[in-house]
């Protein structure tokens, strides 16, 4: 019968030599390799204490953005929701009333905005669809939880901290993200 591949290797059935029967040289050889790793650089880190930096293109937890004055960028145009392949995003829009100009950038805003993190696949299409630079995927991941209901993220969970009231948390949440140009 012809071999199907040319990778067939004949098994060596010669009796062991004296050195091989001694067994110890092979043990020492293996131990040398094992112990040499003690002096090499460790590829792992002690996770909760040490953390690796995320790549700038990492697609993590969504953040709803504000402008420099702290007004919400989102106008509830629904493009993120229609672009979302997992249908994770839902929203309800409302009209800005006189006196709310410091809260919302445009005359329409998202009164309710929710992302179902159980459905989200972190593809980043919402960020790409957004015409107002209102949503982006940050360099953190969604924390684990014990209950399903904790994964329905509302506007409170998603909004970036206020840039003037809480500038430290704002710049931390903003990360190293380059500013995107909006079409206007």
């Amino acid at each position, binding site marked *: 019968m012809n071999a199907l591949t040319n990778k067939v290797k004949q098994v060596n059935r010669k009796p062991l030599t004296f050195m091989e029967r001694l067994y110890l040289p092979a043990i020492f050889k293996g131990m040398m390799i094992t112990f040499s790793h003690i002096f090499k650089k460790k590829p792992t880190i002690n996770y909760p204490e040490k953390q690796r930096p995320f790549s700038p293109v990492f697609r993590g937890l969504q953040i709803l953005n504000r402008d420099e004055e702290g007004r919400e960028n989102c106008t509830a145009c629904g493009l993120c929701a229609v672009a979302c392949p997992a249908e994770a995003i839902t929203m309800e829009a409302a009209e800005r009333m006189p006196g709310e100009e410091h809260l919302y950038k445009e005359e329409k805003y998202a009164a*309710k905005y929710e992302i179902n993190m159980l459905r989200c696949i972190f593809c980043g299409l919402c960020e790409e669809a957004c015409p107002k630079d209102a949503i982006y995927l940050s360099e953190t991941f969604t924390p684990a939880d014990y209950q399903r209901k904790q994964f329905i993220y509302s506007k409170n969970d998603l909004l970036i901290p206020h840039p003037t009231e809480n500038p430290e948390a704002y710049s931390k949440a903003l990360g190293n993200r380059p500013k995107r140009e909006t079409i206007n």
Partner: protein
Amino acid sequence: MSEEIKTIKITIDNITIDVEPGTTILHAARRIGGDVTPPAMCYYSKLEGSGGKCRTCLVEVAAGSTADPRPMPKLVASCRTNVMDGMVVKNITSEKVTDARNGVVEFLLLNHPLDCPVCDQAGECHLQDLGYEHGKASTRYQFARRTFKREDIGPYIQLHMTRCILCYRCTYVADQITDKRVHGIIDRGDHAAISTYISKAIDNDFSGNMIDVCPVGALTDKTFRFKNRVWFTKPVDAHRNCTTPGCCGKATLWLRGDEVFRVTARKDEWGEVKSFDGKTGWICNTCRFETKKTESWTIEGLSNISRHSVIGTNKYKTLEMPKETIKEVMHGVEPKLLMDIHSVSEVNNPTVHLSDLNRSAHSSDFKK
């Protein structure tokens, strides 16, 4: 003798069709359909005298007629040019036409605010479609766009003059469908604006139809204002026995769940109000703005939405709900629900009825 010459031949983009004398090039092209049809922003076949203003329907006439086969020296507006026997028209096959149309779109967008994320017309806006096909990504215009304050035309209609492209369709509606015209164009040139005289409210029974004829988001429904995006609502054809004389009672309901968010007249494939038995299917304001209960309507079925439209995305093909099979397979055991989304989510709350509001939702509506 006259009966012998019943139809005349016209060739549009190498497709020949027989039409009656007196037909415009645009209508002949619509008879062929598809990509051959020039877009029209101001022309509306149901409104007498409309057309000739926006110049988006420009076509090249390569041969005037069999008798005089010289080409026309300039591009002509197809909505206002009648066909001649043996006429050869080039629309998408002509580079000159595409170039001119790109220029027209650039002009139309000069003063347009491009606030599509806020605008309620987005998704069914003709200017959006036109800009998508012919527009450039940027503008060469370096001056400030003209701005207007938004205006309430009567209790139901919102006018955003900044979005207006001055197609005059709404004034034709006021002239021809309502009995008394109380709004029109004031000022000239760059200052021209749609307005009512001294902000006179329009309380005519058919004034709502100017929302349907508006090709952009200049005239929008205040009862639907910011309620939802068009593509998240489900259009169904429905009718009711309307007692208003002149109202056809046949409409399209835009549903969210079982709630009627918006009522419009039925549109044909050209975005114009459909005709029924030779009569244009205008609907009255009672149907449009005040009948927002599903019980008041007899639903006929899903509206036919173009495959390429964003409105058709993520919709079931029929009105019937898909059958629940788990209970059947599990010998009558209901599936165990791990989480009721309404117990956690605040969006689409079944106890909050946005359709009951005859204005846009405010922050106070969501607090309760």
